Every structure is written in structure tokens, then in C-alpha cells.
């Protein structure tokens, strides 16, 4: 093999960079987030079923926003009943624990939705 030193250094660097997800996680407990349902609404249902909400809530919010802001339509007929299409009043009305609920998942997958720049976190906590 020619240029042994350089080639081996290159290979070692490449392998280290490529496998970093393995060694960077060594010994770390991989704790998946467990969003806490606000005890006041525990046992109730969400606007759609849980599996749907888990994967699709951002699209639902997008539809709500468009529907309210563009069409002035503020009522949503969900699979589980009638809801006011409102981030603060509906979602945050039931899920009034943003930090333990929304954020617990979002932090895990590196998301910081900018909604809270304008919307308030919950009806009770008006300066959030």
C-alpha cells in the first residue's frame, strides 16, 4: 500500500465520523418522551383519536389556522365531537401543561414551533 500513513488516517477518520451515532450514545439511557396528559382531562378524548393526533396534529393545526384566518370558520367537527378551532382555547385548554406535554415530544425531535411568539400558552397563564 502506498502512502500508508495518510490512507490509514483517512480511513480511521471516516469510520469515526460515520459511526458517531453509535459511540456518541454509548452508556446514555435512551428515554423516549412520555407526554403527560393534564389530569383534569385524563380519560377524555382528544379532537381525533390518539394515533392520528400523534402523527398528524401539526397538519390539523395548519388546517385550523387556514380555516379560521382565511375562511372565518371557527368550528371543527372532529371524530369525537365539536370543537372551537383555537390553539389556545382548545388544544391548550385541555393540554394546559405545555412544558410536560407538547415540549416533551418536541424537544426530543428538535422542534421549537414559533407559535408561542404570538399565541399564549394557556388561558390561565396569560403571560406565558
Amino acid at each position, binding site marked *: *500500500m*502506498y*502512502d*500508508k500513513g495518510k*490512507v490509514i488516517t*483517512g*480511513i480511521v477518520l*471516516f*469510520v469515526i465520523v*460515520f*459511526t458517531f*451515532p*453509535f459511540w*456518541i*450514545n*454509548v452508556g*446514555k439511557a*435512551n428515554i*423516549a*418522551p412520555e407526554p403527560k396528559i393534564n389530569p383534569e382531562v385524563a380519560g377524555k378524548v382528544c379532537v381525533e383519536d390518539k*394515533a392520528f393526533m*400523534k*402523527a*398528524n396534529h*401539526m*397538519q390539523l*393545526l*395548519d388546517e385550523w389556522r387556514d380555516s379560521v384566518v382565511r375562511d372565518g370558520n371557527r368550528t371543527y367537527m372532529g371524530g369525537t365531537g365539536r370543537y372551537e378551532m383555537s390553539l389556545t382555547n382548545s388544544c391548550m385548554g385541555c393540554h394546559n401543561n405545555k412544558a410536560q406535554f407538547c415540549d416533551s*415530544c418536541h*424537544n*426530543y*425531535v*428538535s422542534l*421549537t*414551533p*414559533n407559535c408561542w411568539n404570538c399565541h399564549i400558552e394557556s388561558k390561565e397563564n396569560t403571560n406565558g
Partner: protein
Amino acid sequence: MNFWVSLISAGVVVTVLIAIGALGAVPALQVIFGVAVPILAVLIFLAGIIWRVVQYARRPVPFAIPTTCGQQKTLPWIKHNPVESPNSTAGVVARMALEILTFRSLFRNTAMSLGEDGPKITYGSTQWLWLGAIVFHYAFLTVVIRHMRFFTEPVWGLVHLIETFDGFLEVGLPGLMLSGFALLAAGGYLLLRRLAIPQLRYISLPNDYFPLFLILSIAASGILMRYFVKVDIVAVKELAMNIANFKFAVPEGIGVLFWIHLFLVCVLLAYFPFSKLIHSGGVFFSPTRNMATNTREYRHINPWNYPVKIHTYEAYEDEFREKMVEAGLPVDKPLDEEATAQ
């Protein structure tokens, strides 16, 4: 090979792979598709790359064949171009960096055309291939770096930063990331280019179409998954972190698109070292790029050269001096002088 045969065979293979990938959604097979296949793919990828690189490194370079694109270092009053015709290691490093990071030599691409007025050949520069290639590669890189949010906990700041720039349009929820679409568009352009230019179509083989189809399918399934047919992202991250931790539990209920996406990525990884995609490693071993243009300063020794037995004139004369003098041939050292020396 016939163009349709190439195109269709590559298409059929990718379709079959997509169908196999979809099997990952069967709960009983999830440990295979979610753990065994990815780990195997990574191992094949790493071993394959090392093997290929060692193969490259074992090839001797018999001649100094750097390509020069500028003035070689010569007399002091002639301006030297230290990057395009490097005579030092630093220059070579700079040239390689330009090649790898900006595809410098592809940028020099020219196209021949007949001028408008009569049969007059003109060469113009064309950068479309360069543009397609650079967008394709950087979009791919950006997408892969953004995927690191699945493999790092806490997610790195760099990943956040790239997401911010990539999603600067702030359209839709989840926010639109430009790089995924740029990857699809550039890949599509590279494919259309292959199909549209007759000469290029003629030389294209199944193994040219296959990686393109594969990468396009990966990008398309990813985009479908992010914006249209949602999957459970938290579960995906759990799976990714489990694999990285060598904990082989597969969370339930990830959508089928994810399994297709993941399987195609595994195929890409395992295929990579044995295909033309290994050009990413090969570029480092291109003698036209990685040698210094210092042929006037240093002699390049061919590593093939075996030790040749030589017989210099001095030795020859030493051997035959007496006979030469007898025969009246001129000698460098006279006979008696040698005798006295002895």
C-alpha cells in the same frame, strides 16, 4: 445495452426493493427490517469502503500525470499559479479541496456546437451538469445532517441551525425544508439529462439508472412521509436511538412509508462501495488531481521499477583495460597508472 432494457431493469429492481421494504410494516418482521438489516447494511458499507480504499491505495502510480490548469512553477519572472498547478503539498491540498467541495474540474465542462453562421465549430462552457451535480450533493448533505436529529439526544445545535436556514420559508406545518425538494429536483434533472441527450443515453447502463432511481425513491418516500402520509416521528427516533445503543427493541406503529424509506437507505448503503458511487472515495486517489506539478524539480520514480543490474563504463574499462590497450583502443585511465595504484 439497449436503452429500454437498462431503464426498465433498473426500474423493476427498485420497485421490487420498495415492495420488500414494505414488508417491514409486518410486526413479525420488524426486528429484521428495523435492526438486522440496518446493522448489516452499515457493516457492509464500512467494510466495503475500507476494502475499496485499500485497493485504490495499493495501485502504483507509474508516471507523474497531474493535470495542469495553470502555469507551472518555473523562472522567477513567469507568474506561477500555485493552486491550478501546485508544486507544494499545500497547493495540492487547496486544489483537492476545491475539487471536492466545489467540483472545480466539472465547472470547466465545455460543449461543442456549430456556430449560427455556417459550419464553424465553437466551444462554449456549459455549467448545467455542474449546477445539477452541486445542488444534488449539497442537498443530500443537508438532508443527511438534518437527519441527525434522529440520532443525537440532545439534538446538536448545528442541526438546529441548518434546520433554521433550510426551513426559512416557514411555510406549512411541519415546516417546509427546501433541501429535500432540491435533492428531488436535482436528481430528477440528472435523470432527465441522461434520458434526453442521445450520446449520454447510449452510454447509460442499468447501474447508472439504478442509483438515481434509488436515491430519488428515498427522497420521494421521505417527502411523502414528512408532508403527506404522516408517520410517528417520536417512534422513529426511539428506533434510531435504540439501534445506536444496540438495544434491539422496535417501537410499534411506525407507518409503512418509513419501512420503505429505511430499507431503501440500507440498500443504498450496502450497494455504495461496490458501485460507481464509490467515486466519493476514489476522488482522493486520482493522480491527475492529487500529485504536485513539480515534474521539473523532482524525478518521479516508478514504483514498478525493479533494481536493474548496471555496468558503468568505468567498471567496463577496469575489466577490459589490458585487452583494450593491447588492441590499441583509447582508455580513460592508462594501464601503468592503474598498476602503480594497485
